[in-house]
């Protein structure tokens, strides 16, 4: 970007400043810290100059939005054309309650739904299973059968609203229920739009909500990719997620590298299934976390897009530019929220959301300020949504594309992120891939070490968390809290048991037997699972068949 002569001149001037002027000045007053580092443990310099990006080639490394390597964004007009999707993750209690929350959010200007399921659903247990005691409807909505899904989506036009479902182990079953509701509404399948998270790999080392062992899990993921490619062209079959990797304790760099590696693994698996890369890759989507270090996060998002484009082009020989797109959903970070002085979280969320927008996201969830304490109240959710709207309409951040491009610091950090992520990718390649790395505990160890380091630094006040280890106050400001009524569990269990009595049980048994057979035969299970949910076989029953054939996964503990 700069000619040799100019760089030399800058270097000379910088050296003069550092060797002559600054020592005099610093003799009297030292800097705040002996060194500055970001969360990814990268050393941050006092100042960045053209020297730090002297190799940068505009067309090669940045280009234009909507064009390879997509560093500046995946769309040509970005937010000038259309704002990102404001998608608030929500769900609690019964399907009925969550349905009301959805309608409220849509009325308030939300543009897409995002369903949070309760833990029994996530783990593939029916609400009346013994492991579900005390958990029904608590951290999300309970969906045990198509009956619940029908109530949940009642009055919501599935050809107009897109829906994201945070579901992994039982992704196939919940997608099947969604398809079944669509069928009932008379919406053609090619019009159903939305996303299933369906990213099992990260479950094994980060989120740990696993039902089946890695191999059959990857098989199910690939079933969904294959099915969507053939039948649900507007559905994103997978949301390759770094968010949970980050929440489990990874730093930004690890989040980036491990997520991309998971992506590589899914592409390989789908290609092994006989799918052409350009047939499915355009619908792969990604999901990242956004933390408080503004510039580090922005650089991470930009590097992610560029690196993925290169991987798709060079490693998988994709031809369609859309296969090289990295479309991303971003959520502000849950683990940065503090239970102390909860209102401070509004400011944290604002910074994180701004990073997501400056990083060029396609979709955003902003956390509510009370989430370190409980499920968000309606008021807290509204503030979170308003935060996005203020950034969109008042800050001007959405008025030009990739406004931080060309910043010496940002471009340097973007390069650094890309380079170091590539090192990780090579390391995992050498280990024999993602599953081998999981079984060796490689990801787990990396994440555990980062989490421990972060906590140590916080404990030692090397890292200041406002209101927690500094500026703490004794008095607490109670905030209103949302509690799920314990009656919810009883009601849900009663409803489910009624369903189990009243449905055509002969038909259910038949279809479950068919499912068992198909599972052993290693067929694509999507069609038969759709048939099963339509017969009102429950989630627990369907997962039960698969548990029998595949076995259950037990975590590998690494601290």
């Amino acid at each position, binding site marked *: 970007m700069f000619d040799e002569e100019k760089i030399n001149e800058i270097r000379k001037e910088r050296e003069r400043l550092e060797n002559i002027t600054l020592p005099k000045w610093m003799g009297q007053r030292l800097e705040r810290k002996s060194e500055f580092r970001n969360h990814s443990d990268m050393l941050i310099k006092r100042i960045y100059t053209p020297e730090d990006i002297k190799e940068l080639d505009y067309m090669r490394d940045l280009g234009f939005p909507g064009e390879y390597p997509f560093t500046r964004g995946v769309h040509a007009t970005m937010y000038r054309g259309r704002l990102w999707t404001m998608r608030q993750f929500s769900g609690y209690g019964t399907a009925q309650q969550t349905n009301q929350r959805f309608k409220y959010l849509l009325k308030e200007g939300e543009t897409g739904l995002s369903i949070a399921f309760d*833990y*029994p659903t*996530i*783990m593939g*247990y029916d609400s009346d299973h*013994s*492991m*579900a*005691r*005390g*958990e029904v409807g*608590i*951290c999300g909505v309970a969906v045990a059968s198509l009956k619940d899904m029908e109530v949940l989506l009642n009055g919501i036009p599935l050809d107009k609203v897109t829906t994201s479902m945070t579901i992994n182990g039982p992704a196939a079953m919940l997608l099947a229920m969604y398809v079944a509701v669509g069928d009932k509404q008379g919406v053609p399948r090619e019009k159903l739009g939305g996303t299933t998270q369906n990213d099992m790999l990260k479950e094994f080392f980060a*989120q*740990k*909500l696993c039902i089946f062992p890695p191999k059959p899990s990857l098989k199910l993921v690939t079933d969904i990719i294959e099915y969507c490619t053939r039948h649900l062209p507007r559905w994103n079959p997978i949301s390759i997620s770094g968010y949970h990797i980050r*929440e*489990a*304790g990874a730093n930004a760099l690890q989040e980036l590298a491990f997520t991309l590696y998971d992506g590589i693994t899914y592409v390989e698996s789908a290609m092994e299934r006989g799918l052409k890369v350009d047939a499915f890759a355009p619908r792969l989507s990604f999901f990242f976390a956004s933390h408080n270090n503004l510039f580090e996060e922005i650089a991470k998002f930009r590097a992610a897009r560029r690196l993925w484009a290169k991987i798709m082009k060079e490693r998988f020989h994709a031809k369609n530019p859309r296969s090289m797109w990295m479309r991303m959903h971003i959520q502000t970070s849950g*683990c940065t929220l*503090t*239970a*102390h002085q909860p209102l401070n979280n509004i400011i944290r969320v604002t910074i994180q959301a701004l990073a997501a927008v400056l990083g060029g996201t396609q979709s955003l969830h902003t956390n509510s300020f009370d989430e*370190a*304490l*409980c*499920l968000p109240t309606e008021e807290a959710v509204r503030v979170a949504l308003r935060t996005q709207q203020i950034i969109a309409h008042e800050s001007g951040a959405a008025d030009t594309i990739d406004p931080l491009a060309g910043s010496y610091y940002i471009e340097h950090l973007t390069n650094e992120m890309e380079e170091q992520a590539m090192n990780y990718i090579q390391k995992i390649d050498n280990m024999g891939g993602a599953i081998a790395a999981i079984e060796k505990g490689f990801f787990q160890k990396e994440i*555990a070490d980062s*989490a*421990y380091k972060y*906590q*140590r630094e*916080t*404990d030692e006040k090397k890292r200041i*968390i406002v209101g*927690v*280890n500094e500026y703490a106050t004794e008095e*607490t400001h*109670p905030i209103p*809290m949302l*509690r*799920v009524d*314990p009656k919810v569990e009883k009601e849900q269990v009663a409803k489910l048991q009624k369903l189990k009595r009243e449905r055509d049980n002969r038909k259910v048994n038949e279809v479950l037997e068919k499912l068992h057979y198909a599972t052993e035969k290693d067929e694509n299970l999507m069609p038969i699972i759709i048939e099963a949910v339509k017969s009102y076989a429950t989630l627990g029953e369907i997962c039960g068949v698969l548990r029998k054939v595949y076995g259950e996964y*037990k*975590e590998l*503990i690494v*601290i």
Partner: protein
Amino acid sequence: MQSKRKIRILIAKPGLDSHDRGAKIVARALRDAGMEVIYTGLRQTPEQIVETALQEDVDVIGLSILSGAHKTLFPRIMELVKQKGLTDVMVFAGGIIPEEDIPEMKKLGIKEIFGPGTPTETIVQFVFEHIPKRT
């Protein structure tokens, strides 16, 4: 000759949630403070937790829960602790437990509840100070 009594502690995760970051960090800090830490892994029933505490003859049980099911699971755990005669075992908890639930949980016999943002040092110190005496 080794004769100093080692502190043995069980870190247990009841509930279906998978947020084990906190539990593991605490486990690691307690280990680094010289204790023997037994970790149960995720999703343990109250019965499994208390049986494990009994077999491992621990001095302390630390419960970590973020799923919101503490109001169902903690009473059951404490009931079993009493039933199995583990009266000289100290129990503390951590995770997301609303302020207003804390008195009720303490009444069950849970010695202390640590919310998010508690420095690990505080927890380690607390454990050292509250090791039950053994006859």
